[in-house]
């Protein structure tokens, strides 16, 4: 399918450590400039799988108790749940703007599918600045699409025990 026949789309590239709200604001700014479809691309981090591949890693429950082995199945589950959390955040923001963006999940290590996804449309990519240090950035660059980097550092979830 030729790019000229396709509608422009704005792709928000997020990871599970991305400050989503800031990227969302940047994407909205682009949509105001030119009409386009909006797509969220969740770039799945392989770190949970890497952790699971180590024989000595354990998951320590927040409610205490004996630490349990962090298995590949658990890594898969955690990864899905993290993606679901981000999707939930995006949906909440989209609802406020009366938008319904598509949500795509791709593994950072799956370069082929990544290329296929980027290459299928004329896209403007909105991504956090820290992504420039990640392997995915090289793929995005070679696809020659427009990339809008939003200054942002990786953010882990705040500690669960803040206040009662």
């Amino acid at each position, binding site marked *: 399918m030729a790019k000229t026949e396709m509608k422009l789309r704005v792709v928000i590239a997020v990871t599970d450590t991305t400050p989503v709200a800031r990227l969302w604001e940047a994407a909205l700014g682009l949509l105001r400039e030119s009409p386009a479809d909006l797509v969220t691309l969740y770039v799945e981090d392989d770190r949970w799988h890497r*952790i699971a591949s*180590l024989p000595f*890693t354990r*998951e*320590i429950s*927040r409610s*205490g108790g004996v630490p349990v082995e962090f298995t590949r199945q658990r890594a898969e589950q955690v990864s899905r*749940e993290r993606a679901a*959390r981000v999707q939930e955040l995006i949906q909440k923001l989209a609802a406020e703007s009366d938008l319904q963006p598509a949500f795509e999940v791709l593994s950072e290590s799956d370069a082929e599918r990544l290329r296929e996804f980027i290459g299928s449309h004329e896209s403007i990519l909105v991504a956090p600045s820290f992504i420039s240090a990640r392997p995915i950035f090289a793929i995005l660059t070679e696809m020659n699409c427009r990339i809008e980097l939003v200054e942002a550092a990786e953010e882990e979830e705040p500690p669960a025990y*803040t206040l009662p």
Partner: protein
Amino acid sequence: MAADATQDFRVKPDLLRRLCALPADFSQDTEAKVDAHIGQQRAIDAIRFGIAMRKEGYNIFVLGPIGSNRHELVNDLVTAEAKARGAPHDWCYVNNFSNPERPQSLRFPAGQGREFREDMRHLIEELQLAIPAAFEGDDYRNQLRAIEEDTKSKVEEQWKSLNERAAEEGIGVLQTPTGYVLAPIIDGKVIGDKEFNKLPEEKRKQIEAAIERLSEELQARIEMMPKLRKEHRERVRELDQEVTAHAVSMQLADLKAKYRSLPRVAAYLDDVQENIIHNAQDFQPRETPSLPFLGRDSEQLYSQYEVNLVVDNADADAAPVIYESNPSYPNIIGRVEHRSEMGALVTDFRLVRSGALLQANGGYLILDTRRVLSRPFVWEALKQALFAKQVQIETPAESYGWVSTTTLKPEPIPLDARIILIGERWLYYLLCHYDIEFSSLFKVAADLDDDLERSDDNVEQYAKLVVRQAKARELLPFSAGAIQRVIEERARYAEDSERLSMHMSSLDDLIEQADYWARNRGAGTVDPEDVAKAVSERRRRFSRLQSRVIDAIKRDTLLIDTAGECVGQVNGLSVTDLGEFRYGHPVRITATTRVGTGDVVDIEREVELGGSIHSKGMMILSAALSARYAPDLPLSLQGSVVFEQSYGGVEGDSASVAELSALLSSLSRLPIRQSVAVTGSVNQLGRVQAVGGVNEKIEGFFDVCRERGLDGSHGVIIPRDNVKHLMLREDVVDAVRRDEFRVFAVRHVDEAIAILTGVDAGERDEDGKFPEGSVNFLVESQLVDYATARKSFAKEATKSGED
């Protein structure tokens, strides 16, 4: 006996109806001096004694028939005493914070209960503003924020130090949705097994050891978190309580000072303060829950400090006098009401309701005995309260242990009330006989007199009472003649010319009906003829059955002769009682005699239509016969006596003179005058004794005779002792005055038989013989003949037996 000999027994017209004569100076303008309860001094003294006696068990039972003014009497006496006693305490139920299922009672001087309720209502209103305001104030917010910041910094410090230590050792702390994972990080990236295995062994061991150590440390910090959280909550709670205590103590200070002299109230106020402070967080402003039943709303929150005033004497200036016309269990003891919430029935101390016992506490409770006894569980509950000297508000089901569901059990309230039961005499005697506890609880019996002596003083008082009653009922003024006529009717009601009935409702009926007839004829005053009209019309309204009897006699359906003579047949007199009205009428009594073994058969008894008193009379009659005649010979008589055409029960001995007369006639073969009827009982010696209903009996026979035409031969024989009871209708008296009708009063059966047969009864001479031809001579002769005949029969029987 010569015809004019009956003159000795005739009752003079003046004695047939004792007329009333008021003093010439009698004035009707004496209302203020009227004693509404004349003739009841004994009962009055008893009631006064009972209500003044402060010891236990001196509750009062007022004995008297319905309509005897017993309620008014009790009310007058008790109200007077109540004024002297002053208003008793108020009683409230309030929440028991330590045990809400047992609401606590508080006692206040009269009027202060209502004041306390208003004070608490005002306090609640103030707290509803003051407590949320305190929580919304900057002071509270700043202190809360400080606590939160402090806690937050402690938590963050824990994490920060752990993360820093982990980072120093190349370990990252990553959060999963439910916990944490420690992983090696190289060049900012979590490494997997491939990268890890490429590391030197020493490095790998170092990483594993660091993760092991950091894991233990992380676990230790995780375990610290609940403690930190608890500490935080405690600090916030303490802050809330401090803020609340400040707001509440300011509001409660005045109340505590005001009720310092009432220790239980002061203690309750302390409880209120403690409870509010303890539950301080409930008073914080909060969002309305999404579903109404998920949280306590502010109304529920503050309602627990409301006051349920169950006895309010704020407006009373005397001890309470309570009359409970519907003495059901809840109305006497009280009840715990429920309200429906989400389909369930719920209750609390605010729904406790007092009954008449508590309303009368410190005063008097007047109850109708019949109603108390007919309402389930009331009598036992009343006794229990009197014995325990306290009122425990609970349902009968709880009281008897029939339900086991949790419900309120309010604290009992001490009882100090005098109970006054009003009831008929039979109820009093029934309770005395069957309830062994009754006498110890109701030690005072106030027995109302049914009538009073017709003395000059009492007549004057009674006349004033008539005037008072007429005025109280806004009736036309009664003329002196009308009052006299009323008093005469009251003597008739008492069945005694020498007494006056104290049955007040029947007096009221009479004067009201006289007033009606006076107004009916357009008069401005009630005159004697109006009273007479009221009496006659009342009688007419009730007279259907009497008319039917007279009609049946007139048409010879009911065989009563009022002329001529007949052997062994006499007109007796009976009275039919219809409750509100009774009338007399003649009854034919016949007797037959023959040789026998000394038995006089009472046919009424044989067929079980005769009552026990009637049977007794017949036996006495039989004994009188055997004692008086031929005492040396066995009584060889077979007699039978019957009330002809009587198909109902016969009771009483008032026909025994008539029955004996019929037997004597049968034995003597002397015919009895059918124009004369007879009533009276007789003893074994032939003495005639007084009977009841004498007026109705005379009038009953008079009415029958009048229907057939009075000719001067008609009359009634009554016991001499009944003359004082005569208060006959005026038409009867007038007929006697015209010598068209006669009333004979006798003391002995000989006098009666002489009047009935026209032959002297005869007395034994010095030889013990009756005068030849006298009634008694003929009777004795016949009995001797019977004895002789019996003896010869016996000889013949013996002889034929030998043969």
